[in-house]
């Protein structure tokens, strides 16, 4: 069960009850920007400080190194992220 550590210190366990990282963050009442929830608009872009994520659908939006889209990804390892 990979852990998701936020830059403000909060830690969430990705236990599989949420389909995507965005859903997991929302369940913890964390505010993440989103539009399409499908990986093509890029509105939910967050920083991936460490760890690895896997994309359920390969995103069409431009994703820079060190960034990821929580709307269409799940963590593979423990990850540390920053929500802008």
């Amino acid at each position, binding site marked *: 069960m990979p852990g998701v550590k936020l830059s403000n210190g909060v830690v969430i366990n990705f236990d599989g009850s949420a389909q995507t990282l965005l859903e997991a963050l929302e369940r913890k009442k964390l505010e993440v*920007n989103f*539009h399409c*929830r*499908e990986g*093509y608009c890029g509105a939910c872009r967050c920083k991936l400080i460490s760890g690895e994520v896997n994309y359920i659908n390969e995103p069409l939006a431009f994703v820079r190194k060190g960034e990821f889209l929580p709307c269409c990804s799940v963590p593979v390892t423990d990850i540390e992220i920053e929500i802008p």
Partner: protein
Amino acid sequence: MAYTTFNRQINDQMKEPMFFGNPVNVSRYDQQKYGIFEKLIEKQLSFFWRPEEVDVSKDRIDYQNLPDHEKHIFISNLKYQTLLDSVQGRSPNVAFLPIVSLPELETWIETWAFSETIHSRSYTHIVRNISAEPHKVFDDIMLNEKILERADDVTRYYDDLIDGINLYQRCGEGTHTINGETHSISLYELKRRLYLCVMSVNVLEAIRFYVSFACSFAFAERELMEGNAKIIRLIARDEALHLTGTQHMLNIMAAGDDDADMAKIAKECEEEAYAIFRKAAEQEKDWAQYLFKDGSMIGLNKDILCQYVEYITNSRMQAIGMKAIFSTTQNPIPWINTWLVSDNVQVAPQEAEISSYLVGQIDNEVDGGDFGDFDL
């Protein structure tokens, strides 16, 4: 240099830059330098919709019952959207097709502009429905100063690029005297105009459109003008894809692997790029002032819309590696997000569940077992 519709030069398309290489000859997609544009085409095609599929008949009653200041907000917003899509339905074709060098990008540009023409036709669908005199709405676009002011900045970068391309493709680099007037053009200058043009298109699609979407959805949040909101939702879904396209172009240009000049230009134009974003944000705030001049509506007023302009400007700048220019970090209208989720978009009932509903999708897998209970 001169444009040709079927370039006879045998070239390796995989080695061409996005723009200003050889004109495209064979439209082939078996190999792609940038697969992303092919994926964008497929996604755009899966989004196909027609305005007539959306029932806007209830909007007529809603519109008639709106107070005058809200009628002004609604119709002005619609006129502005009409202007933006009038420009976007033709300009990418006219400006970019004569200089594009990759087949997948060429087709993406055509697919992109085509979908904008659907948006334009949907505005007529909406206006016809709410007004007995649709011509008055459209005629006013060419007379309304507030809209024309915007048109100026929306089109200037396109026109500069198109003008430069015409000169370059006719006469080549250098200083030329045409009809007694002297004009100079260089390839480097053209590339600069291209970069600024793509930047301003990105601003148009990523900021200007979204400010107008906010107004459309604010009515629907009160269960008013819902047919219109349904159409705007489909338009917003397309626009999200278009701005992803321009963001990719800008990022590929800035990286420099595609064309080293473009990376240099991206650096040189940094200040100008910031100025384009800043000016657009100011204009949109001005526009908010005009929309709400006679009064606010429930859920949206001038100040909230201005905060949204700042918020969306920041987020769009960061998406292409720029720094935020406003201090706003919170979305003042978080309810807009629900309207922008693609899978909530519904056209026909059978499409309710998936956004990429494909017509005629058939399971072609057949094996012997499928005939097991079949008797003659």
